[in-house]
């Protein structure tokens, strides 16, 4: 499906805006169809296999359903959050094969045979991931609603660049919104985690 193939995150505001208009048009079309018939939701059940937080998962689901809702509703993993549903806020960020992906945009059929990590998958036993530890220690949150998405984006950032500069961290997290404005401490937390993770390696 067209929508789900979008590469996420999209870097610039402008492009995002154009894409979004494009998307609204498509969505309107779909909506229109539902509205007319009132018949509700088309359903194409499919068997989908993927790895979730290290464990194999097999699902019988409508393949076009967005991963966000499959995680939250079908699988009960509520750590991944809905903030905008349109790829703008980052609250729904998860890792798919090492890339940070907006789970509100990707269909569950697109993670077939892939490796998905959510916030629930970062903790090992009762040992917090260095990013989780650093976020708590730096008080890098207030309401905490953006935190899972923020940590997952930072996780992918550190996978790609183990010692990012402040500027690189800011740029890497640019598309993750935090209305409580905890950015300053989020950046420090990512620095601390990066140092700790290097120490371990």
């Amino acid at each position, binding site marked *: 499906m067209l929508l789900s193939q979008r590469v996420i995150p999209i870097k610039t505001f402008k492009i995002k*805006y154009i894409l979004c208009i494009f998307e609204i048009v498509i969505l309107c079309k779909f909506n229109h169809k*539902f509205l007319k018939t009132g*018949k509700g939701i088309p359903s194409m059940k499919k068997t989908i296999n993927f790895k979730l937080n290290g464990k194999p998962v097999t699902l019988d689901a409508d393949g076009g359903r967005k991963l966000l809702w499959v995680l939250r509703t079908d699988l009960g993993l509520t750590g991944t959050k809905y903030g905008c549903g349109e790829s703008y806020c980052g609250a729904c960020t998860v890792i798919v094969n090492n890339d940070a992906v907006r789970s509100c945009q990707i269909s569950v059929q697109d993670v077939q045979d892939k490796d998905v990590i*959510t916030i629930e998958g970062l903790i090992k036993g009762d040992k917090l991931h260095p990013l989780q530890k650093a976020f708590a220690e730096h*008080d890098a949150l207030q309401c905490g609603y953006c935190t899972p998405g923020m940590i997952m984006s930072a996780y992918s950032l550190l996978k790609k660049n183990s010692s990012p500069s402040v500027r690189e961290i800011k740029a890497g997290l640019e598309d993750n919104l935090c209305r409580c*404005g905890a950015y300053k401490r989020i950046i420090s937390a990512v620095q601390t985690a990066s140092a700790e993770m290097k120490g371990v390696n």
Partner: protein
Amino acid sequence: MSDKNPEAWRNDAYAKVTGKTKYTDDIKFPNMLHGVPVYSDFVHAKIINIGISAASEAEGVVKVITAKDVPGSNKFGQILKDFQIFAEDKIYYNGDVTAFVVAETREHAIAAAGLVKVEAEELPAILDPETAMKKNALIIHEDYGTNIINEHKVRRGDTEKGFSESDIILEEDFSTQYIEHAYMEPETAVCNPRYDGVIEVYGSMQHPFSTRRFVCALLGAKLSDIEIVGTPMGGGFGGKDDTAAIVCARTALAAKLTGRPVKTMYKREWSVRESYKRHPYKVHYKMGLTKDGYIKAVECKIIADGGAYCSVTPWVTWRSTVQCCGPYVVENVHCDTYGVYTNNVVTGAMRGFGSPQMNFVIESMMDIAAGKTGLHPVEIRRRNMVRQNSITITGQKLDNHKVAMEEVLDAVLKEFNYEDKYKKSSHGVTDTDELYGAGFAMSYRGMSLGAEGVDFCSAVINVQADGSILVETGIHENGQGSESAMCILTSEQLGVSLDKIRYRRPSTSVIPDGGTTVASRGTVMGGSAIVLAADKLRKLMTPFAVKKLGCDEDKIIFENDMLSDPAKNKSVKFDEIIKEMYSSRTYPHAMGIFKAPVVTWDEENGQGNAYFSWTYGCQAIELTVNKTTGKVKLLNAIAAHDTGKSVNKVMTQGQFYGGMAMGIGYGLLESLNQKDGIIKSLNFNTYRIPRSTDLPEMKAVIIENVDPNSPSGAKGIGEPTNELMAPAIANAVFNATGKRYFKLPVKITNK
């Protein structure tokens, strides 16, 4: 977490970094239905019919609710009962909900929502508050008789005389924009009808008690029939009051009518469309000064667009009125403030509550005045600012707390090296591409509700048989860390370690109504109630320690999980005393009630002791403006605030940074695109809030003058930190470009 050093401790950090926190949408019940609101295309219209038959028959739909199904009163509100929960006779704004579809799944409900048909006769939409105020204007709420929701005034001295004694008279017009709260978690509610007939409500709302009033009104229920359970919230910022309570009320009605649990989770677009915003203001401001820069008179007219419903417009505009001259002594003041109905989106409480708008005006005026008198912007403020024992424009003598205006100003000047930065400002002239400027702004702010409402709150400390402690207050955790603050205060007060203490999330059926968690009053009110409860508890425990240690009552201190008499070097464990109390049939249980000191207000003249205490703040920023593109780059910013006693410095600083970030959004980035009463910027692609890359380096300076007016000694800090960045930016932009901007957000034009 094992690390329970109060310097960086919050009781919810572990759950939040692991994704375990259960926000409202994370809660589910078996057999749960889903509710979805239905809007219409209208902005102002007379309803002819709301057709629900097609929607009712759609697949998966259980019920479609309209105003006809309301057993209680469909109209409610905190001040005026004008907020219609389901559109009935008229559509008052584009966010009015005409029907509520309840279905087996959310997808079914959304699909069916498109089948509801609203027929209505369009009325002319009144979109400009000044038009709405005109004598012959169409009345929006006919039974109210006028479009003017409220008026406030200040009458002090004789402005005519003041202006005649002035050497310089300045007169300017300012305007500010709507602000969307943009809490990351949209409105959500889950309601569960219990077997005993009570409906339990979990919701993303910031005021459980106020929410309960809305739910009870709609359902025609008694307060004891509804239990609102405090639920972790993904941000509120003042925005999860009326409209969030209404989402809970509709959901509760659906639960009542279907007899099943119901969840409503708002899409971002619905949230932006329906929820109330910060008021846009139009302000005409006239100021007279002597050539030495002393303010002789101020005359101002403030018009706030209240949108379709009253909400808390009278309270918001009251604060603007009381603080209409900023932290300056002015003997002759004439201020008229109007809150006005329009058919625009509703406006109500938002972090700052009427002060961000006025601070932009006043602090711009002060810099303009500095320019006209040739005085330094710091000097002109020093000449006029409030000091110890000053009398405010409403006649309140500032003598019951430390007036820290100059202290916070000096802190900013020193810590920011302000003078050097200010001198470097380009004033429109530069050899490079970048114009540079530094600017600052300052304010004072009345604490808590003031004459806005009845101000009291309770706390309960309930020690268990093993010495562990349960604490609760009538204050709701909005994400600001108030639960942690309450735990830390309890630990300090009883001399026990933090890991003994658990905060019991309040339910409206357990703790008495503590008022709303607004006006930065959480720590002041709830914290004070904790201090009073702890005091009672210590008095209960002391006789047992006296018996055990054989020492005098007044010698006992509570420290390190012990009760001791240091002089005699004797001590007994806290837990042991508790055990002792239980075996002698005494509960170590205490309730503290804090009543805010009484304030006075004379509406006729706008005079009185408006607030029981005041807090003081100053913020500065340096920035560059690109000569060709007009792009603003923020470099460094600083905030100094008198926080009263800071219960947890790390969390307090967090409030500073968050407030500054939001203030930057207000000053530079955010504007809601509303055309003809219809909001176009419905999501984050078009409503731009600050991002990691937008923010400057930030510094927080905490000035701790313990407030003698409340047992906790704290002063609210959530709002003051959010009310100064916009004027500081406007002043810095002026110092960079030489151009003054009278409108928010500051948009650089023709360089």
